Structures are given as structure tokens and as C-alpha cells.
């Protein structure tokens, strides 16, 4: 006797769906390096004080840094 609904295709699809659960997918997240997406900044020596003269800016800053050493200041 022929069944009213074809069971074989449904049973096959169900078996395939259940078997899919046995598949192994990579579970580790991949991290990607982000890139700065904010506004661009002006460099410290680009202001009115140094007019783009990086050497002068570095010299001014170096004098301040060295001035923090009181042993050098009292020499």
C-alpha cells in the first residue's frame, strides 16, 4: 500500500539537519586591528608658537625636561 505522504524525503532532510550538528566550526573570534576614525590632530609644533619649526619645539621641550634635574640646575 502506497503512503499518503512521501516520508522518505522528509526523513532524509531531518537526518541531514541532525547530522549538521556534528560538524565542527571554528569557535575562536578573529580580532582585527582597528584604525583611528576620529578627527585629525594638528602637531604640537604646527601652532602659532613655533610655526611648524619642529627643531625649535624639540629644543624648547628638551630645555624644560633637563630643567627638571635639580642636580644639573645647581651646577
Amino acid at each position, binding site marked *: 500500500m502506497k503512503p499518503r505522504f512521501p516520508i522518505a524525503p522528509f526523513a532524509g532532510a531531518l537526518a541531514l539537519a541532525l547530522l549538521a550538528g556534528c560538524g565542527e566550526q571554528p569557535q575562536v573570534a578573529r580580532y582585527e586591528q582597528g584604525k583611528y576614525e*576620529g578627527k585629525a590632530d594638528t602637531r604640537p609644533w604646527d601652532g602659532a608658537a613655533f610655526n611648524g619649526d619642529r627643531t625649535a619645539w624639540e629644543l624648547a621641550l628638551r630645555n624644560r625636561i633637563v630643567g627638571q634635574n635639580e642636580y644639573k640646575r645647581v651646577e
Partner: protein
Amino acid sequence: MARMKFLCDAERCIECNGCVTACKNEHEVPWGVNRRRVVTINDGVPGERSMSVACMHCSDAPCVAVCPTNVIYQTEEGVVLHDKDGCIGCGYCFYACPFGAPQFPNGPAAFGARGKMDKCTFCAGGPEENHSEAEFEKYGRNRLAAGKLPLCAEMCSTKALLAGDGAEVSNIFRDRVLRRGKGIEAWGWMTAYGAEKEEAK
């Protein structure tokens, strides 16, 4: 010029909080936000140590790595800054920072009510025109563009807090350590300023 760094000499810090006050005043930092603070270990016990802590401007900064909107960046001089316009106040940077540097002023932001992140800028302002009103309002004063060092370090009365190029700051500290010696005989004044001063005291 290499990388800008802070160095706090725990032997010299007297917990005066001058650096904290200088920072708050210079940048007009709102109530509840401390870009810099002084931490004391073994308070009241002989041998206690204090240290001034703020953003350490890490070479490989974790806050830059975790920011979901990618608005934290590092300048050529190694200063870690951020664009407040793109900050959503999620607080990820706070969880990532080992020093607790990111601060939240409880204001409106896209993500919750923490407000936009605020932190030490090494007195280098932010991504706005140097010395502009917008820069001051959002990030505070830009002393670096004026050829000056952060005010916390320049105001430090004992010169415990040093700021500037990492190599130069290391040289100053190395010189200091060599002069003052070490060991049990070098405690307190001697440790901080050397044996000659002890005799003069």
C-alpha cells in the same frame, strides 16, 4: 624626540596633591573627574609610599585596542589622546586600562549616562585646532604646543613627578638614584635628596 612618559619617584612624593590640584585648575576639570590622583600604600606606617598616577600613555595602549568606535589614538610623540566627538561613553577603555585613567563625568552620551570619556592628555589638548576654544573646552589646555611640559610635573614641589621624553626622564632618575644611594641608611630625606643634605639639615 622619542616617547613622552611620566615617571613618579615614590621616594620623593610627599602626597601633597599639588599635581592633582594643578591639573584640575589648569584644565578646569569638572567635579567628580580626576585626571590625576595620588595613591598611598601603607598610609601612616613608617616607610609608606605615595605615587601620583594618571594616564601612563602606554606604548601599546589597551584602551586604543578596545575602543569600539576607534577614536583613541597615539600622536607622533607617543601621547594617547581621543576624539570626544566620536566617544559613545561605553566605558570599555575604563575596563581595559590597568591604571583606571579614563574618567566619566556623568553626562549625556550615545551609550548610557556615563558621558564622554575624559582623561589625562599630557597637556597636549586633542584633535582640534591648537589653542582654540573648542580644544580647551573639550580637552583642556595645550601646553605641549607651547613648548611646555604637563603642569602636574612642572608644579611638583619635590620633583617626584617627572615628565617628558622617556630617555631623558630615565637619565634624570638614574642620575638621582646614583647620587642618593640605597639601603637602610638611605631612608627618608637621605633617600630623596642624598647624604650631603642630611648633614646640612
